């Protein structure tokens, strides 16, 4: 693969010394694609994803070894704040900041990082980000309302807009549609397909159909190991490993 944006190099993640959640994962993530990480619950896929954003730094009991390269630089040796500004994250449940308006939610990244914008820049950013998540038309008249008044799907799109505002190169998504209804899910999926032109998406999903529909590459993890990786088409049509086959045919949790 030519110049992958993220490279896992023998990445191991353990909880409280001993319990290995992720074992020796090595993989390349291609630029401007959607890559899905699949696997049964507890296989370490979320743990791996969160490590890319250095979320494990928040907890004393998680240790990461090996390398995670981002444009050739080891994330694990970088300042978390710098990493997180360039790599955004969207969580399972929509998490709009309850005390902020929709407008302020989109700009939260700037506000939190203490970056001052002019009124014009702010308006421009809010409109651009909300348009790119196809939320602008729905909320442009209620921008001063609290983000929590929106529906679940709208809230999640707002959170994506919030992550996009800082113009990250990578967007990490941890089962972003698991709390949403099918229609909202479909809209988000369409949106992600659009978005991959500007940002690389690395997504954990429980939903095989979703991975098949929108991702170009897939990783399959089982019990902390990366069992198989490759193009999604190939992984679904012709899995090499027995465990992948078992999972895809529903013979595994």
């Amino acid at each position, binding site marked *: 693969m030519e110049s992958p944006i993220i490279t896992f190099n023998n990445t191991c993640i353990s909880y409280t010394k001993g319990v290995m959640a992720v074992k020796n994962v090595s993989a390349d993530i291609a630029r401007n694609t959607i890559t899905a990480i699949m696997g049964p619950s507890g296989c370490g896929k979320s743990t791996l994803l969160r490590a890319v954003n250095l979320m494990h730094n928040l907890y004393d009991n998680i240790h990461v070894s090996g390398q995670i390269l981002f444009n050739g630089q080891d994330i694990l040796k970088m300042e978390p704040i710098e990493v997180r500004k360039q790599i955004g994250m969207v969580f399972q449940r929509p998490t709009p900041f309850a005390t902020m308006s929709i407008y302020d939610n989109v700009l939260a990244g700037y506000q939190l*990082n203490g970056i001052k914008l002019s009124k014009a820049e702010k308006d421009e950013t809010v409109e651009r980000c909300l348009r790119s998540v196809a939320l602008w038309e729905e909320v442009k008249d209620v921008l001063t309302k609290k983000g929590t008044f929106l529906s679940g799907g709208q809230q999640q799109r707002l959170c994506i807009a919030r992550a996009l505002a800082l113009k990250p190169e990578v967007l990490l998504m941890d089962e972003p549609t698991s709390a949403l209804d099918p229609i909202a899910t479909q809209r988000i999926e369409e949106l992600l397909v659009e978005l991959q032109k500007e940002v690389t998406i690395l997504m954990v999903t429980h939903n095989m159909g979703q991975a098949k529909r929108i991702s170009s590459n897939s990783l399959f993890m089982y019990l902390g190991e990366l069992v198989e990786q490759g193009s999604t088409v190939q992984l679904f049509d012709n899995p090499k490993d027995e465990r992948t086959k078992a999972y895809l045919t529903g013979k595994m949790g």
Partner: protein
Amino acid sequence: MEKGLKKRLFTNKLTTCLIVVLSALTAVPLFAILGQVFYKGIDQFSWSFFTETTPSVYRVMKAVEAGSPIPGGIANGIVGTVIMLFMSMVVAIPAGILGGAFLAENRKTTMAKVISYLTDLLQGTPSVIIGIVVYLWVVVPTKTYSAVAGSVALCIMMLPLIIRSTEETLKILPASLKESGLALGASRATVMFKIQLPAAFGGIFTGVLLAVSRVIGETAPLLFTALGCSLMRYTIDQPISAVPLLIWEFFNDPFLQEFIWGASLFLLFFVLTLNVLSKQIAKKWKVQS
């Protein structure tokens, strides 16, 4: 690294440090108080300190003249505290438990809401006001300060605490416990007394201990009800002393100031032991349920 980021990281570190340092400082008064009371009070602990009554000023002056240690002790206060605590508990515990049961049983009714609100009101009422009111209710009609009056004051202070802890404990019991009892055809009273209350025993016991530890050190409500008395008394219709009342007397009497520390240490020991004990039990009990 850019300058703005450096500043932010520094602010972050500084905040963490401040939080740790200020939190640690908050613990200082506890150790300062315990240390001082222990250091000054432990010397006074002797057999006579717990078996003799408060000395008269005359006896103290004599002793000071002779250069001998101050005679006497706090036995009258200990006896008074025990008598008043006992009398108030006899009423407050059953009444509190039944009241708590009522609130837990009739959660949604207006009556329960009103009582619940008034329980909060009573719990928040300054103890000195309880003292005034009991003075008006008991001391004025009987024309004498008494152990009974003191007990009434303590009882009123304990009641809301016991009601609350009983209610809270009954609330967190699984609903299935009550339902399975009722399903067997037992009456609600039987279910309450034979199943729910025994299951809630740990929580209620903790609540009672905490209530006792709260009122055992109360001084203000006893000032105008029990008044205090330097004699050993076992009667309930006359003024009586209590350990916190004695501390107040010693504080106001330059001849007896030495005694403050021994009495304080004694009181502190009981209050904190009850406190720690009840929290230990609460922890254990919560793990089991």
